[in-house]
């Protein structure tokens, strides 16, 4: 396959569709990572939360033969994991990073363990008849040649992830609670001093984070695939954390960053036939994240310096005014 063929396949509708499909399980936990990060707690446990939700969704939907119950159970299990993190971090004063790591370990071990107990197989849940979330054809768009293939006929969570990004942006920047949440993350003591219930806000942020991550997990096991595999999240929870920073800690930025990760993943699949090692392509987003992290922090520093300077100038003029 020549280079031209690769280019052709990249600019095809199918490629766009596959990017969307691959990005969704990164977008959803990334939104969760964003919420908790903005509230001042870095949620390492996204990965484990996704796994638990993915597992619970499959098992419950298989035993109740209801996709809806599976999804609800999956979300509840994700909230439960977030609550465990909350109890240990917010009440028992465990460091959130250690608690997050512990939860990830427990999720990996616990899901494999229970999978083995339930099915006698440690690899996947193929013996369970689990459900799949609905796929949506968008009327009108589905009949347009390029757009139809690219954007229609996806799993419902693909669309939900875009909708949630918008809702999250509204929540964070247009609601009282959203502003409080960001204030707590910026400076918890200052927030407390103006009467914000810091503990409550942090609890809400962690639970929201668990909600988003559990949707990401359900997307893995009940949409992207329709079974549970051991370690099926394969580091997506950590990539999601990176997307938070690559996206400049803003909802739409995070969405775009997650899609960039998805695009490189899809690209490395395409390159399999060309004489380029897939590892060399897969490594690009990680390097890009580090570069983005550096750029973001340099900018933050510049902004902080600028603010300090203008504040000092302001104070000086105020003093002079008093002196006069």
């Amino acid at each position, binding site marked *: 396959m020549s280079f031209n063929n690769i280019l052709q396949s990249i600019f095809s509708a199918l490629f766009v569709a596959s990017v969307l499909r691959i990005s969704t399980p990164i977008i959803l936990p990334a939104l969760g990572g964003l919420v908790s990060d903005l509230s001042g707690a*870095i949620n*390492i446990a996204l990965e484990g939360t996704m796994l638990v939700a993915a597992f619970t969704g499959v098992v419950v939907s298989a035993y109740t033969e209801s996709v809806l119950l599976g999804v609800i159970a999956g979300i509840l299990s994700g909230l439960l994991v977030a609550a465990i993190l909350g109890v*240990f971090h917010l*009440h*028992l*004063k*465990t*460091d959130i*990073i*250690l*608690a997050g*790591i*512990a*939860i*990830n*370990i*427990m999720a*990996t*071990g*616990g899901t*494999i*363990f229970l999978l*083995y*107990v339930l099915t006698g197989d*440690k690899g996947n849940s193929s013996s369970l008849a689990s459900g799949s979330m609905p796929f949506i054809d968008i009327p009108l768009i589905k009949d347009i040649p390029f757009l139809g293939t690219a954007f229609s006929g996806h799993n419902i969570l693909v669309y939900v992830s875009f909708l949630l990004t918008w809702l999250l942006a509204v929540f964070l920047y247009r609601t009282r609670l959203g502003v409080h949440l960001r204030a707590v993350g910026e400076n918890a003591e200052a927030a407390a001093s103006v009467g914000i219930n810091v503990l409550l806000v942090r609890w809400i942020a962690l639970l929201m984070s668990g909600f988003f991550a559990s949707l990401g997990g359900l997307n893995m096991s009940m949409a992207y695939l329709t079974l549970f595999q051991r370690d099926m999240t394969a*580091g997506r929870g*950590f990539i999601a*954390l*990176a997307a*938070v*920073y690559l996206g400049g800690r803003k909802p739409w930025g995070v969405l775009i960053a997650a899609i960039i990760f998805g695009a490189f993943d899809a690209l490395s699949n395409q390159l399999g036939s060309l004489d380029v*090692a897939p*590892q*060399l392509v*897969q*490594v690009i987003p*990680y*390097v890009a*994240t*580090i570069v983005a*992290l*550096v750029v*973001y*922090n*340099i900018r*933050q*520093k510049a902004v902080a310096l600028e603010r300090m300077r203008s504040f000092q100038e302001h104070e000086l003029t105020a003093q002079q005014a008093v002196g006069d």
Partner: protein
Amino acid sequence: MRKIFANAAVREFIRIVLAVSIALLLGLIVTLLVSEDPWGAYKAFLLGPLSKFNRFGDWIEESITLIFVGLSVAIVFKAKQFSLAAEGQLILGALVSGSVILFVPIESAFLRITVAVLAAAAVGFIWGVIPGYLKAYLDANEIVSTLMLNAIALKMYDYFLTYHIKPEGAGYTASDFLPKAYQVPSFMPKFAGNLYEMFSKQTNITHFLYIMIAACVIGWFLMYRTPFGYELRMIGANIKFARYGGINTKQVIVLAFAISGIFAGLAGAHLAQGIHNKLILNISMGLGFEGIVVATMARNNPLFVPLSGLAYGYLRAGADIMERSSDMSREMVLVVQALIILLVSAEGILPVIQQRVNLNNGKGDGVGTAAVPEGGSDVIQ
């Protein structure tokens, strides 16, 4: 009696033993619920590593890796820098040390092995300087940067192994075995006769055992007997205070990341040269994260790392044996492990236990003492 409990280290020890016991008890309950032969399974788990000589060897080998990684994590965590870089440093350490043995034409076995081990340490150091610099000078979140560096290291390892190291035409992705003449010798000296025969035939415990012991002593000396160690602990206790006290916090942080990388690199060298004697795919499988458990149980003190490394290695080896000899899967130990981290690191649990201890000793001021913040034993000694 009361004097013993007044000692912070003793209290800490009791707390960790309690945490491990609770976790093991929960493991037993799970086993009782699930297994057809719970007692047999749990016995294999708890006594397995001592049941056969080669199993004993597996335990010690695994523990050596864990202790190196634990040391690496302890040093950087002591400064309250949550670097997760050990995984990547370990992978690159394995890659570099294995490659040196395979491809660098140094005649003398001693020299080639030494160069390989030093190269692993050096690459770990470099892979630590990067996130350290980013954290200290640019305030870049170390968790994200180290996770990215881990991913990059893993892709590099896969790339070199698949395209350059794997022998041509091999059906599997792994290197050749390291040449016999250039393998690290058994830790038993040859003149030990029978013992040497036993250990070198049935186990892979090599000279890395001595390197590990030296590393623990050096780690402890560095942390508790040098200015660098003092500054490191100050930064961990209160970074603002440390900066105010005139410590060059940036420099110390970069060094902490880098030195921690040396130990992780050595862990990688032990995997390549001590355990597998070749480079294989997925050589680490999350060992970097296991190091966090070891360091947490040792409360980030290099002298306690061997204890917690051996204890934790024992659990892991026991779980392997349990899986082979019963209907329980080894993943149960992951749950036990997670519980240990949660219970040991939950500083909020400490005052409760302390209060009980004091009350049991019939002292009215128990509640008062309990209220004194212990800083989770991370008190500067």
